């Protein structure tokens, strides 16, 4: 029920701009339910977004919110967290923010293992601009800029994050939205850079070009192809959901605080 979580929304900013059947609202709800479950102080929560459909989420949420430039959400968030580590910082990105124009920041936020909770809403397409292929568009799928099918292969964001040094990675879908809430909670609780890949649907710009007649068909596809990690091997077009990796490593802002304290003791 919306009333359970309405306190976390700027109701004056609603209705949202997303198309009917879009999955971003589902991800927004999962994020808010996670924050409610975690009982975080609303005044202490910062949500940062980039550019694109996903980025509009920050306007609707009643926290300290920052809607930045394309691809730079993680870099803005790094400044926030490094300057004031006591803030709870969530970063919401789309395909382009995380995997294309912002790819460099993605790698280095993971490498620093800075305590940010990053949520990438992967809808396989650039939606805001009308359906161009993205670095997360699957091979052979159609987009306005890959009208004969995508020749490129999608970036494996979780594998990149793990290789770069992130300490938590998980995937869920808008169909598996309770799992999505759970992994966002786990991601927040991990003291380091945490990535949640939220597989979502864009019926208007992706679905109708790729033989999904309705949004429900896309959710059904998620249900049928998302496989809980550890249950079995994945087959063609299937993907793991749940916790994908977890590791231990020093966290950036805590290391910096240790440095400050060491210097205060006169130890260079």
């Amino acid at each position: 029920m919306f009333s359970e979580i309405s306190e976390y929304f700027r109701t004056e900013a609603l209705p949202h701009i997303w198309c009917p059947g879009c999955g971003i609202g589902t991800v927004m709800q999962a994020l808010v339910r996670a924050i409610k479950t975690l009982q975080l102080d609303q005044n202490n929560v910062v949500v940062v977004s980039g550019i694109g459909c996903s980025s509009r989420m920050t306007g609707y949420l009643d926290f300290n919110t920052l809607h930045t430039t394309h691809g730079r959400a993680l870099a803005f968030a790094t400044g926030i967290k490094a300057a004031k580590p006591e803030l709870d910082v969530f970063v919401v990105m789309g395909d382009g923010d995380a995997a294309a124009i912002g790819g460099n920041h993605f790698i280095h936020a993971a490498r620093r293992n800075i305590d940010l909770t990053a949520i990438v809403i992967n809808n396989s397409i650039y939606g805001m601009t009308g359906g161009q292929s993205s670095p997360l568009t699957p091979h052979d799928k159609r987009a306005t800029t890959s009208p004969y099918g995508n020749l490129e292969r999608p970036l494996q964001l979780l594998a990149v994050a793990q290789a770069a040094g992130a300490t938590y990675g998980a995937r869920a879908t808008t169909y598996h939205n309770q799992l999505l809430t759970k992994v966002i909670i786990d991601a927040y609780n991990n003291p380091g850079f945490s990535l949640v890949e939220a597989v979502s649907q864009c019926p208007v710009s992706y679905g109708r070009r790729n033989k999904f007649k309705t949004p429900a068909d896309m959710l059904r596809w998620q249900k049928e192809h998302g496989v809980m990690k550890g249950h079995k091997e994945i087959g063609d077009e299937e993907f793991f959901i749940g916790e994908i990796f977890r590791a231990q490593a020093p966290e950036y802002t805590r290391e910096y605080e240790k440095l400050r304290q060491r210097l205060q003791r006169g130890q260079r």
Partner: protein
Amino acid sequence: MSEARLMQGNEACAEGALAAGVRFFAGYPITPSTEIAEIMAEKLPLVGGTFIQMEDEIGSMAAVIGASLTGAKALTATSGPGFSLKQENIGFAIATEVPCVVVDVQRAGPSTGLPTSPAQADVMQARWGTHGDHPAIVLSPSSVQECYELTVQAFNFAEEFRTAVIMLMDEVVGHLREKVELIENLPIVNRKRPSVPPDRYIPYENNESRIPDMANFGEGYRYHVTGLTHAENGLPTGKPEVAGKFLARLTSKLDLYLDRIQLWEEAELSDADLVAVAYGCTARPVREAITAARREGLKVGLFRPITIWPFPAGQIAKLGGRSFLVPEMNNGQLVGEVERVFGPKNVHRYNRIDGELITPSEILEKIREVMA
């Protein structure tokens, strides 16, 4: 109390930032600005601040804005190529009215150019480098002392007027070593915080001062910051009347304060027939040339804009009826602003773009030619 020391302009800039209360620096190494980052890396953790070397120039600018939103006075430093990369986020800081200071130690360009040679070719980029109509404050030091004092001033302007302020240095003043007095107790300005409770806070209020009060993230005033054109409540708007009102305030907000923002120096103007308009490193040889010219009986004076944007056109207009010489280490950028005031007829140029500093004798020669 003040302390006299021999130091480099970049070092004086870093000291000025510390005197202003800087607590955050994000940057990426680039010649000839790198010393500023190195000094910040050493000193910020000692004063409880944070230094972070970002993955690129764009991320550095982003991190600076993020840090400032939490209340930290924030700085970045770069040179031409990095200044180009930062432009989109500089526009974001200006449009969202997040205080910060960006140092550009100019080197010869275009492109990678001559990384260790000076130039003054980013004058127009500092004004119009980011897209869209926007206000700009750009300061141009011509000595190591000014690198110190103007960095404090840059932070004061950034905090008071809620904008990104550009410290437009150059390789000469950045790397030059000369005596500097680290004046203590310079006036320090901090952003005006809201005096109303959170439920009555209007983050982008169109008030008489044209500068809305600024709440920091995490202090109970939850609001939205967006690069989209926004209403007074911070939320995006597509309504022309709301957008127009916001943009009118944003682009005119400095107009109320020009008498304090526009800084300049005048020398030997009372009887001058020719006014040399020079700024930054070029003002140094110009001074020497003026002394030599006066020995020859040529009545030359100096008008040195310290604030180059907003250009002190009103002040220079008071010097009408004389000729002007505008030497610059570019192909003629600020000279256009002098021509805007007087037309091109009595405005002379002297330009050098090969990475060599303009010498006093070159300027003297030009003075003789113009006054012949």
